[in-house]
């Protein structure tokens, strides 16, 4: 057992930290409450990360990426998440963060879709959730029916982040029976007749996701990723990695909030003494640190499993559940320690708070994670004594 972070990853983290301080924090006052940064600023930042050799640092080397693996990605995302810019869900300035689906395509699909995304020339979005279904695949109602060499798609998807900017959509639709085995993944190009943007959702967090409507949209059979009826496996893989990445994002935000709280407690005087001298304030800070520490360990452990190619389904659920709750509590305590100032939109805490609250629901609610964990345990699949016993 060894908890040392390899030297090269520490250097990567250090560089990311510097980039955040120099390039991103100055943008915060203007863009913290935006769901995205303007295109010209993103272009400038991307040029800079490419110049520094950051771009696509997490992707496999065979695709031109830095190949640092999941743990390396966690370390960089922790740094990025300390800043409220860009928003959690915005296409990152460090990497396209495109998820595993496109890597499962055939050579032609990789050429046409994966590579341009990696280069930063194209953008994509992930369309799974539906109004009636949430995370429940058995209720997916968007349907694709074969018609000659094409498939005809009807239905709608909601809460699709950046659907407006995507050059193509990773779409999941029902092509067969009721269960998980009836779902297929399609790549649908922007401009495909019959596909259009629907409602734009205003959320508590700065996210502004879209509805995507399919009205007899026709897609060639060649646009199917993997096999017909095996789409749910792809979706599940995407969701698992997404859950794991809730860890570093929550950790980064919480770490900054705790730092702000500590600084404020040391500097703010009330009734003739610094807040830091009050026992109950000290306890709030201690509890935050302990929760942050545990969350970080859970995240690194799950990342390590992913890097070794071990199953991390249950660990990802645990990471999402606990890290997001940790972030909520740490940010909330930081606000409380700041008093009225904590509520003000002049400080970064207020938007962090709305973000934190949102993340208890998005990408699989806390309740969904509990269901996953409990089902592993009650069925005996997930052993209790798991660490070091992969």
């Amino acid at each position, binding site marked *: 057992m060894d908890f040392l972070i390899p030297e090269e990853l520490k250097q990567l983290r250090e560089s990311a930290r510097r980039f955040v301080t120099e390039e991103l924090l100055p943008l915060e006052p203007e863009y913290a409450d935006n769901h995205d940064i303007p295109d010209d600023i993103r272009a400038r930042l991307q040029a800079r990360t490419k110049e520094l050799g950051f771009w696509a640092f997490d992707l496999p080397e065979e695709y031109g990426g830095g190949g640092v693996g999941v743990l390396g990605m966690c370390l960089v995302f922790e740094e990025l998440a300390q800043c409220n810019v860009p928003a959690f869900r915005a296409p990152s300035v460090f990497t396209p963060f495109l998820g595993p689906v496109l890597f499962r395509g055939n050579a032609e699909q990789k050429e046409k879709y994966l590579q341009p995304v990696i280069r930063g020339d194209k953008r994509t979005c992930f369309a799974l*959730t539906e109004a*009636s*279904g*949430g995370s*429940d695949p*058995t*209720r997916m109602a968007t349907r694709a029916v074969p018609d000659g060499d094409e498939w005809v798609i009807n239905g709608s998807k*909601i*809460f699709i982040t950046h659907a407006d900017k995507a050059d193509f959509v990773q779409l999941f639709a029902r092509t067969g029976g009721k269960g998980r085995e009836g779902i297929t993944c399609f790549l649908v190009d922007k401009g495909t007749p019959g596909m259009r943007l629907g409602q734009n*959702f*205003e*959320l*508590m*967090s700065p*996210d502004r996701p879209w509805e995507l409507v399919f009205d007899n949209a026709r897609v060639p059979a060649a646009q199917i990723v993997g096999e017909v009826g095996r789409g749910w496996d792809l979706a599940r893989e995407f969701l698992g990695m997404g859950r794991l990445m809730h860890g570093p994002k929550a950790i980064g935000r919480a770490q900054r909030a705790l730092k702000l709280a500590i600084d404020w407690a040391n500097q703010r005087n*009330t*009734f003739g003494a610094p807040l830091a001298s009050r026992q*109950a304030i000290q306890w709030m800070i201690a509890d935050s640190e302990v929760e942050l520490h545990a969350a970080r360990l859970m995240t690194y452990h799950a990342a390590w499993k992913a890097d070794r190619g071990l199953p991390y389904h249950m660990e990802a659920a645990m990471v999402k559940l606990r890290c997001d709750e940790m972030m909520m509590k740490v940010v909330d305590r930081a*606000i*409380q320690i700041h*008093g*009225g100032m*904590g*509520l*003000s*939109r002049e400080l970064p805490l*207020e938007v962090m*708070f*709305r973000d934190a*609250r*949102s993340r*208890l*629901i*998005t990408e699989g*609610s*806390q*309740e969904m994670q*509990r269901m996953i964990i409990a089902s592993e345990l009650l069925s005996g699949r997930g052993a209790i004594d798991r660490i070091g016993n992969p």
Partner: protein
Amino acid sequence: MSEHELTQEQRLIRASVRAIAEKHFKPKAAEVDRTRRPPVEHIKTLAEAGFVGVFIPEEYGGPGRNLLDLVIVVEEVARCCANTAILVGCTDGATPRAILHLGSAEQKKKYLPRIAKGELLCAWGMSEANAGSDIGNIQCKAVKDGDHYVINGAKLWCSGAQVSDMFLVLVRLDPAPGLRGVGAILVERGTPGFSVGKHLDLIGFRGTGMAELVFEDCRVPAQNLMLPAGQMGKLLQVFNSDRIATNPPICLGVAQAAFEAAVAYSKQRVQFRKPIAEQQGVQWKLADMAIDLEAARALLYRAAARVDAGKGSAVDASITKVYVNEMSRRVTDTAMQLHGAFGLSEEFPMERMFRDVRGMSVGYGTTEIHRNLIGREILDGRYSA
């Protein structure tokens, strides 16, 4: 609804205010939050029906109702629009109450009838950058100059500032350090040297016209002085009963609305082939919300009834505020969670409710300050559970 313990008249008040709020306030609640426009016309609507200046005695043109009546009014308004409920503080909150209890005969005659008609809105200028609950640290200064006071300084977090006509401002009148040098003075809008600053955008109650107050050599007639230095205890007493009158019923009303929405939603939302209301975990969440609401309402109504019976106390107000504040945070949080992603959407009221009550735990004295107060009362033997 705990109706058993209310009088026939109180039930009538509730029904009337609920009807008004459902019809006029609820449809605009989302827009008020989004546009940051204080819905001052809602105060007019309430005034027409006789529900502002509720506490003002008949001799000054009010209905002279007791505190529990007012609590019910505020709760029902907040159930439909928390921003409107906060504006009710401009006619029924700390400043109007201070005028009644501490104002001169002339001030009462001049202001109270107009307040009771909803024609005069009053705001409360207390907090400063370095003085929240620590009033003894107030820096905003008023210096006597002939038959005027000259005020210099600034006030933060002033609810209703943008729509109010008059302001009760806590100022340092005397170089004596701490609380002993602090007093209170009335400042009318339009007084030269006094300006209402920029809108302060907070996490919640964005439609209350909250702003900074700025005083630059602002000259106010000496008769506007309401409280000379050294008598802050009197004002704090008014403030303590106000703590029950507005902040907790706002939280209770919002939580009630969140609970109702959560029940309706969970009966309708289908997941894994049945309404989520059929899941035990969801049922327990609903049960916990109900338990929490019942305990909060029992505490709040009891505290108000105690004030009405002349048995109110600061510690009672603090206990009530802390419990109801934190209840409303838990209940709106759970209600939002039960709504899933829709709970986050601005199309549903859940996220606004959650934001609005978050600030109520900080405003009117943080829950932490109130815990300090309760702790001191216990240890000094002035209070025993």
